[in-house]
């Protein structure tokens, strides 16, 4: 892989307005190719800023403001009953010697553990299955277009709807899953999938895998279609075994696409809420960090404490993502070729 990062070629960067440093990638990259500081460059940057401004304002309003409010409330004792009267209580929501706080709450750590367990297992399964599906869809066969579209159906159904649908299918008394398993004689007693603590998390993972594998397959398929055909031709000429071609050619080449897809999925999986909430409600066996935060915030009306949990959730996801990007050497900007 060539390390031809344009931004690090040593050309002096033009001044970028404060707050825009991270957003102006394409114009900046374009600018550094020319001699820095020319009138044309400055005009381009000005128009880039102008074009980006509406998006930045909208982002600040819909993402920045709520996030800022949440972090702000995390240091207060606000409640839903009277949201305008609150006091600042410092880090009490996170840790205090009197009633413990978030970091001393075993339920919170249970939720953290559940979430990480869920994210690891489901994303791993979805990646492996998604890769297999993508490889299959990358083959030429009659009716490929229809199959590609059909595969996307689980992903197209809103999560709430598919979760409720699976809730009925997994029902212990009249669910179709139990009827099928009983019919072919694998089990002798109906299994209460979402009620039994041993199977509840498995059920959630299963539904998530069913729903999100198409998404992974689609992202990986896009990566597969970008692969150069000459490697495969030379492999064929040399008579390399197909499995060797897969592990030595396909996998390394498609890795960047997989890595980015995994980040998307992991971010999604770490803040899992709707699926778990619909299938198993507030049960402690499957409670994720988001379900915990919602329960504190809405059910217990504790806006301060719930915001502290949301903030911790945000920090944990950010931390895990950074660790993954560094450890997996993921190229998010797409500038490495």
């Amino acid at each position: 892989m060539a390390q031809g990062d344009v931004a690090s070629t040593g050309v002096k960067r033009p001044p970028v307005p404060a707050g825009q440093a991270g957003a102006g990638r394409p114009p900046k990259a374009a600018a550094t190719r020319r001699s820095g500081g020319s009138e044309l460059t400055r005009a381009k940057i000005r128009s880039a800023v102008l074009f980006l401004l509406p998006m930045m304002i909208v982002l600040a309003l819909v993402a920045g403001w709520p996030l800022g409010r949440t972090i702000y409330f995390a240091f207060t004792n606000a409640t839903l009953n009277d949201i305008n009267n609150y006091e600042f209580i410092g880090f009490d929501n996170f840790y205090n010697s009197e009633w413990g706080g978030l970091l001393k709450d075993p339920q919170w750590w249970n939720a953290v553990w559940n979430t990480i367990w869920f994210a690891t297992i489901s994303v791993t399964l979805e990646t492996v299955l998604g890769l297999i599906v993508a490889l299959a869809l990358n083959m030429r066969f009659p009716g490929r277009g229809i199959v590609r579209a059909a595969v996307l159906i689980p992903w197209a159904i809103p999560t709430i709807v598919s979760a409720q649908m699976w809730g009925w299918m997994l029902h212990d008394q009249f669910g179709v899953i139990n009827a099928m398993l009983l019919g072919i004689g694998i089990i002798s007693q109906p299994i209460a999938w979402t009620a039994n603590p041993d199977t509840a998390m498995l059920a959630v993972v299963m539904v998530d895998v069913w729903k999100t594998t198409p998404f992974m397959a689609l992202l990986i398929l896009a990566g597969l279609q970008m692969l150069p055909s000459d490697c495969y031709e030379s492999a064929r000429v040399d008579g390399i075994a197909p499995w060797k071609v897969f592990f030595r050619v396909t996998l390394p080449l498609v890795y960047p696409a997989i890595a980015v897809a995994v980040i998307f999925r992991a971010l999604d999986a770490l803040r899992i809420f709707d699926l778990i909430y619909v299938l198993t409600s507030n049960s402690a066996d499957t409670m994720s960090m988001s379900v915990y935060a919602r329960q504190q915030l809405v059910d217990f009306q504790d806006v301060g404490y719930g915001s502290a949990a949301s903030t911790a959730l945000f920090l944990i996801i950010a931390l895990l993502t950074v660790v993954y990007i560094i450890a997996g050497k993921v190229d998010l900007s797409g500038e490495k070729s």
Partner: protein
Amino acid sequence: MRRIDRYLGAVFAGATFTVFSAFAVTPSQAATVSISCGAVGQELELCRTGAEAWAKDTGNEVVIVSTPNSSTERLALYQQILSAGGSDIDVYQIDVIWPGILGSHFIDLAPYTDGAQDAHFPAIVENNTIDGELKAMPWFTDAGVLYYRKDLLEKHGMAPPTTWSDMADAGAKIQKAERDEGNDRMYGYVFQGRAYEGLTCNALEWVDSYGGGEIIDANGEITINNPQAIAALDEAGSWMNEIVPEGVLNYAEEEARGVFQSGNAVFMRNWPYAWALANSADSPVKDKVGVVALPKGGADGKSTGTLGGWQLAVAKYSDNQDAAADLVRYLTSEKEQKRRAIEASYNPTIKALYEDEEVLAANPFFGSLYDTFVNAVARPSRPTGDKYNRVSSAFWNASHAVLSGKQSATDALADLENQLKSVKRRGW
């Protein structure tokens, strides 16, 4: 050009007409009142017919807003609307444990009721009165009762059980006998075991029937970690996978009723609303169902039931407070409560209706279980105030852990006590 002019003219005329007719049609006094109704069983239908009758009488309009079946989720929805000061809903149907949590958002109804609340059960009126203000009018009351299959008990020569262990024995025997006869799906007992408010009601009944107190006493002291409560939860845990389907761990009221009403359970714990539905024309168990008070916890225990029931309140943020309060007055009146009792077995909160012949003919158990309804055990929502949901959630989680076999009752209640102490340190 000409054509465009003509079009413009038509559009303008149309717009003018619309604007004027909007002014002309708006009546001077009629209001549109929106009311939130539950949808458990026939609730929604009854609420609609009642509210529409009022609308017809008064010339107003009503909009029915249906809300989630799970009371935990309904509360969450209300809180979002109320804390935002929303005027989307004028009349709220609120649970008996919520006046303390939501009271600050509701108006005082006393000026509108003309003393009508004096005819209702005083305990409920007191429950709904906060700082001297009547925050909600009682609509119907509830207490957990035991449904049983008359035909099956008769067939196997048994009487309705008086203790939990009687019930478990009878349930196990009939379950086995019926399964031997080919009904594979038969279970002894179903109840509400999902991790939600309903499990708190069920578990409190077990604990109270053993004399194990009310989780937290009237002075706010934590009493739940005691031998009677442990015995009660242990016994409930012993039913699991014997006479109770494992799926009960995710059942709310309607799921339990689904199993019982399909004829697949001998006993069911539920609220009185299930009576009218179990005896409806298309019910497979029509005329095969009996109702008794919940069993006692051992020979020395007592029959009990958790106090449930729903109230109607008017939001401070309502734009039509007068009309909304009048709708509440109408829906909680003796006439309307009688209709609801006869049509759908909703327990009136007006004492006199328990002696009404038509009501008793429709619901024979209203008379025999009168004491259960009047002396139902209250959840500790008063002593714990706005921390009640935390307390209840900790309690249902502990009960759920015992039922699912994750913890022994001894460990679960010891953990629960610690958890409640930590909640209490933040004040209740």
